[in-house]
């Protein structure tokens, strides 16, 4: 019975984890491009970037759940990030992170696995021209 639950858990729970990770990556890729598109060297552009990310309709967990707690950060390079940079004109990159995708584990928990797994995703986009940087 233990072995059976483990096999079912591997197929069912890990399958869902891989799908969630993939959905989250598709979302952050699109979100980082949406945000980068709005950056125009002004503080208002940074606000519009935040808004563009929150309006994206992409969802996860088989397309049923909206992404929560999405973080949008701006950088002059791909090393240093700030959610509210002082100098908007120096922003050349946008980083979007979807950190709060908690997936309930249904079968593996019965054989000692975790109760839930977090499936974060992150993407960076350049602003001019708009393209994915990583």
């Amino acid at each position, binding site marked *: 019975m233990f072995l059976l639950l483990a096999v079912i858990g591997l197929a069912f729970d890990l*399958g869902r984890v891989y799908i969630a990770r993939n959905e989250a990556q*598709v979302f952050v890729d699109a979100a980082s491009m949406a945000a980068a598109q709005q950056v125009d060297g002004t503080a208002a552009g940074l606000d519009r970037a935040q808004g563009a990310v929150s309006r994206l309709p992409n969802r996860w967990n*088989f397309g049923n759940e909206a992404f929560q707690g999405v973080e949008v950060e701006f950088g002059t390079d791909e090393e240093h990030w700030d959610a509210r940079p002082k100098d908007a004109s120096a922003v050349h990159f946008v980083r979007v992170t979807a950190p709060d995708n908690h997936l309930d584990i249904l079968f593996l928990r019965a054989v000692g696995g975790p109760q839930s797994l977090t499936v974060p995703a992150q993407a960076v986009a350049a602003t001019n021209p708009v393209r994915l940087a990583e």
Partner: protein
Amino acid sequence: MSSEAFRSHGRAGSRKGHAMLELAISAGVMVTCLAGTFQFGYAFYVYNQLVTAVGNGARYAAQRTYRAATPEDIERGKAAIRNMVVYGDAQASNDAAPVVVGLKPGQVQVEWVGKAGEVPLAVDVSIRGYTVDAIFKEVTFDGKPFAECPFVGGYAPGEREP
């Protein structure tokens, strides 16, 4: 045969019968569980491939040049996006193999977001009516997976699709 030997032989036969019955019941449960596991596992695997394909297609659509000299050009642009989703290649040859078994361009829906005659705001890509044959049961995906990507490509309203 003495009466003692007869009773002993009867108990052994009874135990053998119980074991057969237990095996039949437990095998039924196990086969059902394993069949269900295979079915879910395979459907998940295919769905994951579809998520990747739709994401790649949406990103390609968002970055390509939008040409709209005629409605036919818009449709040809959509056909290239569908090919990218299904074959991983916008100009796929006739004998190209789909990235997901059985997926056809007609099962990929592409919609430009925004007003006609203006720069598109975004592109929506989704799967319509794709059925996974998981042997024990068929699963149909309709409207999922879905991906929207902001349009960041070139805008050429007077150009023809090559």
